[in-house]
């Protein structure tokens, strides 16, 4: 039954599913022998981590290495990434104004051609939509209040209701319905109105500004279409291609034939590996930009 429920996406065997999805670095701490629940420990570790977002930065290179290992090396080959890499979505995490590194922010540019022509359907007024939304969520709250769970401590009520059939809660409304058949991929995946085209990353050279060798003026730190990224657009495909370049070359398991051969790495990546040095440089530049050109090292 469960297999059938997700057939629209899990239609292929995930035989390459070698990386555990819900195990991240924090879970390593669980092996340290604390006698607390996993949930409590997760909250504690995450809270400590959240606090560490302030203060002197530490272990950020290690974090970037874990991103590389977990998310960039792991992006699948072309065939397994779906149409226009639609297996993926991109989370963009921004540099901040607070000088954890140098202050920075980003200006995104997007396609506005054809914006006047794009269809605008006659829809109900927003006021009506919000009124309906309010009503729906209020009703849901009332249903929650009727729930058995609220009455755990009330023995009388429990006795009264013991013989009543527990209300069917229906489908899990916190899960999305599959994308409608016939819907086409949106601006994140194929070029169209509102597709992101490029970004300009600004930063403040804090040391120079403090020393008054430069005026207070945000400079362009880098752009997505400039050196070394040269991204023609910012579709998911573009990000996934970049992630593949940023990922470490995957070592191929040693076999008799490979021990003597020079193809120490996965053959899919051979083209990229011919330029291994430039890929290393690409990673170094990417990490430099991640830390807003502050020169940070662990």
């Amino acid at each position: 039954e469960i297999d059938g429920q997700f057939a629209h996406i899990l239609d292929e065997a995930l035989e390459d599913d070698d990386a555990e999805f819900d195990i991240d670095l924090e879970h390593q701490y669980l092996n340290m022998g604390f006698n607390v629940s996993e949930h409590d420990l997760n909250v504690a570790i995450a809270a400590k981590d959240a606090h560490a977002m302030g203060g002197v930065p530490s272990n950020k290179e290690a974090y970037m290495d874990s991103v590389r290992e977990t998310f960039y090396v792991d992006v699948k080959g072309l065939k397994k990434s779906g149409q226009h890499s639609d297996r993926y979505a991109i989370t963009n995490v921004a540099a901040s104004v607070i000088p954890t590194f140098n202050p920075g922010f980003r200006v995104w540019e997007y396609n506005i051609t054809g914006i006047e022509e794009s269809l605008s359907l006659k829809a109900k007024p927003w006021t009506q939509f919000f009124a309906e939304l309010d009503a729906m969520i209020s009703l849901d709250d009332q249903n929650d209040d009727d729930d058995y769970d609220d009455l755990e401590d009330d023995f009388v009520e429990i006795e009264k209701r013991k013989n009543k059939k527990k209300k069917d809660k229906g489908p899990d409304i916190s899960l999305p319905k599959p994308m409608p058949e016939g819907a086409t991929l949106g601006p994140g995946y194929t070029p169209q109105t509102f597709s992101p085209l490029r970004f300009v990353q600004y930063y403040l050279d804090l040391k120079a500004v403090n020393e008054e060798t430069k005026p207070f003026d945000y400079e362009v730190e880098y752009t997505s279409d400039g050196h070394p990224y040269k991204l023609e657009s910012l579709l998911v495909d573009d990000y996934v291609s970049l992630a593949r370049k940023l990922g470490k070359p995957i070592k191929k398991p040693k076999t008799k034939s490979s021990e003597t051969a020079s193809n120490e790495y996965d053959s899919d990546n051979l083209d990229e590996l011919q330029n291994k040095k430039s890929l290393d440089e690409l990673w170094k530049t990417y990490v430099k930009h991640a830390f807003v050109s502050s020169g940070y090292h662990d």
Partner: protein
Amino acid sequence: LGNHRSKVLHGRFLHLTDIHPDEFYKVGANIEDNSCHRGKPGKGSAGASKYGDAMLGCDSPMILMNQTLEWVKTHLRDKIDFVVWTGDNIRHDNDRKIPRTEMEIFDMNTRVANLFHDIFHGDALDPRHYDVPVVPSLGNNDVYPHNLFAPGPTLQTRELWNIWQNFISEEQLHIFQRGSYYFTEVVPNKLAVLSINTLYLFKSNPLVDNCDNRKDPGFKLFQWLGVTLDELRERNMKVWLSGHVPPIPKNYDITCYRKFVMWLHEYRDIIVGGVYGHMNIDHFIPVDAKKAYKSYQDSLIRQGF
């Protein structure tokens, strides 16, 4: 009551995050305690610099915030269509001698919101009519105590509404007071930005358990997300998502993370992308829908047994 000027689209927007202004910051103060609030600098150190020092652990001096926003006003304001601003608008709680208070958090958030209002509002009579719409979202430092945010309506959701009400359409008051999430039509009838209260999905918020329990605010957030995205899809609109804490396994409860990724996947016909803050590190992460579904499927099977 708007300014009745025709809107010129530039095809650009600004994302700005984690300002962390600190009104106790003192130029020349000792940096060693990571707060730059007092004391003499150590030997060989000039102490806290005028605009702040990278990598030394202090928050932003007020002048850094003010001049940054002034720079934005001068160089960007008239070249962008909207602003996504993803929270953390006050200092960290890292000075035991001056612990943060709830009122201080509200006060600083109000001051920062007023700065954004003054820069981007323009001259319309309608306080909600912006030359450049601004879409704020809630940071884990913008709540008291740090990281803790309960389902609304609460004092905090009410105060947040008071602070941000000019940025949000009036009809969303009730929804906002339940969860401090909302959306803005940044290009009317064409493009919306959703402001997601990521604290309901955040591992570090002890007031929420997961996103599978119907009573948890994360569950209700997804309910709102579904209705809203359906309506936007119906109107043929496209959507950017925004929030403070980015959706990656390190940050979100696993039950919330995988659902979030599933939503991104099933609405890939209208969701353009997502921008987040919190981590201070400029990077991107491809999130994998197949693994999210597989993880959910596995969790159902485990529950079954």
